[in-house]
């Protein structure tokens, strides 16, 4: 067991840090430290392409597909330095971190050849079509249908909570392809072009006044039959594989953003004197401890591969970070007091900490609510009986 990195790894760290610093201090200074997910999409697309030019868009992928076949430790280092430099959240997170690995694992040669290069080059942005109005936490209740029409699938239905769909080029969709099925049976996993008449995207305005999430309506939207990943009716398995990539390396980058947020809270507490208040000091310490334990938990999760304790650590990660961040939002507002509740009249977006306070309420909901996570931990992690389904 070892915490430290090797000299070669530290050299890679310096290389990453230096390149990111150049970019963020230079051409991409205008999007440095952008916390907001919906600002300046065109510039962020440009940033995706710049990453690709430097072969930095998907370093964990095989060299043949535009990656660097980077080791786990290199990926850890990359994610940390990326975030430390204030590089913006990846607009193509879904493509790089979720769909790409899924295609590498389960895609046909043709699918790899058609879809992977555009992700690696930063030219195709992907989003995820899972949740539906009646199937939020309960993915098995999906009702979006796809029927075969010659060489194409024709999709009818509605997805919701689709993050960043308004900027995306492609969507992967879980749709029911077999009539009369319910639950996990009869679903297929389809790759659909968003730029077609059968698709309408409506942004959903959130609690913080912005719109990251969308409703996506499918009304006769089409995709080639060849765009189905895995076998027909096996979409649930594909989606499970895809979700298993969710808690990977990118969590370490996400943690650097959390670090920035905690640092902002610390700075505010120092400014207004709360940093000297023993009651607040306890809470600040708890936040610091929680963040550090997330990091070491993620490192355990990564080092452990698929074995033993991973089940525990990986299962517990979502609720850990989401609860931590929500608590940080509350701490931020408690530290700031009334000053945290106001912004200039003409401000378009809320300042970092007010936005954290608001947006973090969604963290414990999307991607599996805390309640669902606890079910999973209890059932899969501890082997307790499953919650019964109702009769509906």
């Amino acid at each position, binding site marked *: 067991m070892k915490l430290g990195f090797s000299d070669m790894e530290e050299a890679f760290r310096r290389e990453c840090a230096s390149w990111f610093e150049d970019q963020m201090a230079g051409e991409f200074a205008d999007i440095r430290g952008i916390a907001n997910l919906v600002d300046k999409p065109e510039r962020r697309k440009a940033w995706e392409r710049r990453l690709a030019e430097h072969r930095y868009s998907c370093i964990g992928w095989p060299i043949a597909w535009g990656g660097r076949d980077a080791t786990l430790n290199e990926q850890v280092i990359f994610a940390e330095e990326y975030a430390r430099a204030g590089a913006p959240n990846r607009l193509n997170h879904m493509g790089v971190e979720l769909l790409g690995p899924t295609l590498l694992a389960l895609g046909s040669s043709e699918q790899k050849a058609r879809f992977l290069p555009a992700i690696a080059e930063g030219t195709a942005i992907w989003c995820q079509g899972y*949740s539906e109005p*009646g199937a*939020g*936490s*309960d993915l098995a*209740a999906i009702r979006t249908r796809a029927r075969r029409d010659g060489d194409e699938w024709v999709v009818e239905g509605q997805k*919701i*909570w689709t993050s960043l769909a308004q900027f995306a080029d492609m969507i992967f969709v879980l749709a029911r392809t077999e009539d009369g099925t319910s639950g996990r049976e009869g679903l297929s996993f389809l790759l659909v072009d968003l730029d077609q008449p059968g698709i309408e995207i409506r942004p*959903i*305005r*959130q*609690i913080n*006044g912005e719109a990251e*999430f969308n409703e996506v309506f499918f009304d006769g939207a089409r995709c080639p039959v060849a765009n189905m990943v895995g076998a027909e009716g096996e979409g649930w398995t594909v989606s499970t594989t895809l979700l298993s990539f969710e808690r990977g390396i990118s969590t370490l980058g996400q943690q650097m953003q959390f670090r920035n947020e905690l640092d902002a809270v610390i700075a505010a507490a120092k400014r*207004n*004197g709360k940093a000297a*208040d023993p*009651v*607040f000091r306890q809470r600040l310490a708890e936040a610091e401890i929680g963040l550090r334990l997330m990091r070491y938990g993620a490192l355990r999760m990564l080092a452990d591969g698929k074995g033993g304790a991973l089940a525990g650590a990986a299962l517990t990660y979502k609720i850990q970070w989401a609860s931590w961040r929500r608590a940080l939002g*509350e701490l931020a*507002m*408690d530290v700031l*007091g*009334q*000053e*945290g*509740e*106001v*912004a*200039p*009249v*003409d*401000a378009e977006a809320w300042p970092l900490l*007010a936005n954290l*306070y*608001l947006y973090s*309420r*969604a963290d*414990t*909901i*999307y991607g599996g*609510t*805390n*309640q669902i996570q*606890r079910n999973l931990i209890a059932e899969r992690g501890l082997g307790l009986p499953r*919650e*019964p*389904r*109702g*009769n*509906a």
Partner: protein
Amino acid sequence: MAFALDEQQQMIAETAAAFFAENATSERTRAAMANGIDRDLWRGYCRELGFGGLMVPEDLGGAGLGHVELAIVAEQAGRTLAAIPLLGHAMATAALLASGDRAAIDVHLPAMMAGDRIVAAGERGGEGMLVPHAAQCDLLLLLCEGGSHLIDASAATVEPLKSLDETRPLARVLALAGDPLPGGAALCEAARATGVLCLAAEALGGAQEALDRTVAFAHEREQFGRPVGSFQAYKHRLADRAVEIEQARSAVWWAACALDEGHETRALALHAAKSFCADTYLRVAGDMIQLHGGIGFTWEHDAHLFFKRARAIANMLGDGPHHRERVARIMLDEAA
């Protein structure tokens, strides 16, 4: 000792509940968010309901009621997030009456009672003076060290701000001129006590409404083929919040009675009520979002309005740690 609403109080509660339910709808509150006050609603409250002079003695044209009745009404206003200047109004009424300044009373109270003169009230805080409705009011009541000022709004420099709680926006009072009201610290304390009670009662009402709406949702919404309210984790969360709301109600009633009766536990009760009710509201409103799932964090749903109001109340007139520290001083026999 009779710790229940009497018949008249029960009637006031029902009247206020019906008035706010009918008039302070989500649509009207959202419409009022553009400028911070629903002025028609406020005039209706003052004139039709006749609550503009709720705590004003009958010989001054008021209803001659007390803090218990204020709490009853504020609870109902809080339930609907009514965009009205009740807080400043109640604080200024208390301050004016406590001042015994007959001239000021004659000048201001009649117009206030009619709903024509709007008062914003706040206290000097750490970094500045953020006062709810300061950008909308006619009069400003400012609580400072050792005294209060009641100032014509035109005599103050006010910076309007974008506020988290748009149903009661804050603005920054940058500079002010005007004479302190006679009465000094005692008057200041009277106004603050009334304000604290008003906020606690509002928080109670907001928490109750947030709970009730979440319970209703729990019956309607299905996931995994069952109403979400049939899941025990959901039930227990709501049960815990229901327990806290019962405690919050006890706190508000205790504080209101203690104020009206000059009870020895008066200070303790106010600190307890403000901190407990605000914390309860924060938790219930947070759970309201969580337990509604995705819809709960959309702009269209009202959950965020409760959530933001809860936060605003928590920060106003002393936060939780402040009030608990005051409780500690009292219970540990130190100087108040």
